């Protein structure tokens, strides 16, 4: 008893000492900027190179804090709670409003204008994502609280080598396939290639949470009405899109079944050359360009409207409202987001599309472009791309609610329309609450200003 208590005491002591040691580490340095971001290895290397050039040009030292994507939000929140907010950091579209209302993000409208940045040459969607007028985010009139690190147009792609071998015509880069025509192609390439009686090559294999959007939108459906007050997932257009989506697996069998997808997910299967059609984001290029088959981009197949649709995401870079060096911090933000040399470093790493429209057009038109139809990314960026349904609402709880119970629909044991009718009131209640929270926060913000 005595001994164990002593041990417990020692352990407790060590824990206390350990915690103290941890908390004394880190924090902002006083003679330079701190920049916190997230990313994979390719991204880290590219950003480090860009930042080194920034230090060379301006003489401003930058202390870089990198975290892996899963931990970023927690780490940033911890730094905010500990009053050690980095001078410059990545900011999610969905968190912008609360960060502004809590006085964490600095209004950089004037500094950016003073630095002479030509915002018209940056994707409008990217810049507007970080504008906020106190009630609405994403409006051109709002004040600017960040610049896009990048925008992520989520295009659709295909394994060109596979289609060629199957004798299927390449999809037209400008005229989208209808759902029916696409299904025919899918059925044609879903085959047993080695003759062992089991299908080992599939038409496609999509993830409902990340790929359903295009289907719903091109069928005339949407998650909410225009002013984001009414959840509209219970419309026939939405239900039809979801049903078509799940039927690909459960009725037509042109995708790996759930067990097969669990064994090896469809992303891996696409890279292994087992899947014909698969979405492609700009961040995939660095990996896909190394694959041993040719791939290219195409518009997403379309439902009843005949108009293709895709989502486009964005991650922003913002400045802390409590930064000791606000001018240098804004300079770093504009450098990373808009400087030509910095952009070049990032583009060469194949992790994003250029932020500058002129550079992007050049990049897409290049003769050695890989994938050849890079233009599809730009079309999404300036033409048919849409923000994710929850990008500009106050929190995404209402949106996530749709996915929680969706499994039986995906498995084909529950009709889409029945499920959607059931989930709509729950989503509506959460959206109402989110809108209430937004209004309350904006009101408080107005009082403190």
């Amino acid at each position, binding site marked *: *008893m*005595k001994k164990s208590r002593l041990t417990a*005491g020692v352990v*407790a002591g060590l824990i*206390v000492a350990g915690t103290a040691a941890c908390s004394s580490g880190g924090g902002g340095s006083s003679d330079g900027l701190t920049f916190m971001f997230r990313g994979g290895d390719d991204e880290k290397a590219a950003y480090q190179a860009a930042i080194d050039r920034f230090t060379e040009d301006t003489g401003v030292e930058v202390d870089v804090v990198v975290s892996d994507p899963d931990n970023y*939000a*927690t780490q940033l*929140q911890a730094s*905010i*709670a500990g009053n050690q907010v980095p001078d410059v950091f990545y900011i999610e579209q969905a*968190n912008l409003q*609360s*960060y502004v*209302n*809590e*006085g*964490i993000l600095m209004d950089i409208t004037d500094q950016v204008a003073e630095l002479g940045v030509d915002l018209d040459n940056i994707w409008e969607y990217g810049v507007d994502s970080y504008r906020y007028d106190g009630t609405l985010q994403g409006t051109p009139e709002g004040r600017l609280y960040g610049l896009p690190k990048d925008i992520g147009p989520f295009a659709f792609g295909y394994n060109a080598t596979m289609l060629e071998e199957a004798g299927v015509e390449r999809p037209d880069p400008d005229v989208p396939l209808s759902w029916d025509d696409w299904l025919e192609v899918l059925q044609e390439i879903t085959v047993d290639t080695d003759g062992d009686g089991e299908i080992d090559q599939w038409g496609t294999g999509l993830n409902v949470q990340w790929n359903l959007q295009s289907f719903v939108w091109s069928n005339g459906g949407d998650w909410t009405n225009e002013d984001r007050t009414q959840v509209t997932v219970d419309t026939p257009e939405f239900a039809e899109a979801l049903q078509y989506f799940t039927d690909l697996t459960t009725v037509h069998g042109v995708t790996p079944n*759930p*067990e*097969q997808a*669990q*064994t090896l997910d469809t992303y891996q299967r696409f890279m292994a050359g087992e899947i014909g059609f698969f979405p492609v984001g700009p961040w995939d290029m660095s990996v896909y360009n190394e694959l041993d088959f040719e791939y290219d981009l195409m518009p997403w197949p379309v439902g009843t409207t005949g108009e293709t649709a895709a989502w486009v995401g964005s991650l922003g870079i913002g400045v802390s409202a409590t930064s000791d060096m606000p001018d240098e911090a804004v300079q770093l933000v504009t450098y990373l987001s808009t400087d030509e040399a910095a952009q070049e470093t990032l583009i060469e790493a194949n992790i994003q599309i250029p932020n500058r429209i002129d550079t992007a057009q050049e990049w897409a038109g290049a003769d050695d472009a890989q994938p050849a139809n890079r233009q599809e990314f730009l079309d999404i960026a300036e033409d048919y791309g849409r923000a994710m349904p929850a990008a500009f609402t106050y*929190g*995404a*709880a209402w949106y*996530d609610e749709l*996915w*929680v*119970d969706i*499994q*039986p629909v995906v498995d084909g044991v529950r009709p889409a329309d029945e499920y959607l009718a059931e989930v709509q009131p*729950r989503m509506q209640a959460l959206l109402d609450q989110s809108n209430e*929270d937004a209004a*309350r926060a904006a009101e*408080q913000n107005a009082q403190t200003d």
Partner: protein
Amino acid sequence: MTSTATPATAGLATAARRSGARRKSAPPGGGTSRLHRNEQKWALGFVALPVLGYLLFILYPVLFALYASLTRWNGLGAMEFIGLQNYANLLTDDRFHQSMWNTIFYLVGIPIGLAISLALALAMNRRLVGLTVFRTIYYIPVICSIAAVAILWQWAYNGDFGLVNQFLGLLGIDGPNWLADATWSKPAITLMMVWKGLGYSMLLYLAAIQAVPRSLMEAAELDGAGAWQRFRAITLPMVRPVTFFLVVTQIIASAQIFAEIQIMTPGGGPEYSTASAVFHIWRQAFQYQQMGYATAMAIVLGILIFIITLIQFRLNKRSSFVLD
């Protein structure tokens, strides 16, 4: 345990006698000696350290959480006091109820695990060849990182190629797709928890069984008690304190299960069937920035665990016995 406590108590008694003797010999009217005061200062210093730690790391956070649960707070900015609104909202929050029910379901694994580990401990108590090897094998899961274990079990539960279904296939059973099936996901996770906890419980039971006085066993044997009767009437009551300890600590631990859920079924599993209370709390606090609301849930969970533990202590006291 009783045997180690005896010298400690004896030591205290001698210390008390000594200090009493010293007090008698102290000069009359002059208060206490310098040595005594000095010792008292040291004692206070030693006492202050844990007390300070308690105030700083337990009491303050708990009081803070109590207050936070009464506010609307996103974890970043100002807290707005809203009274019991968060608690009222809890009453109608279906997802919270569901996560509480899931958590209660996981507790089913505790009696199953205890029964198996007691049986294992009895087996390990015999003279077997390779006993240490077996003990080590059963203890390995305990020291394994929960993240690694969760990923391995995720593979084992794979619907197509998982070890579990392969094994069931040998028996002619077509196993379900465990983690993607709302009916089977909770039992799957419970099974894993049982497996992970076996070694620890077994070790404690083994120590308890070996502490059962041999004389009792011999006496019972002389009186003609069979193996089952000896187990029921002697071993089982003698290991009661260990059972009590394990039940209490495991209920507290299981009620806070999180890492396994987060790794094996990100998003809370099909139809939220695996989301534990702590998982739900974490999601509200860090994904939806509802820190105040999440704190209220945490307080409710904490109170429930406290009540359950209290009931257990009551029950244990009522049926406990002393062996003289």
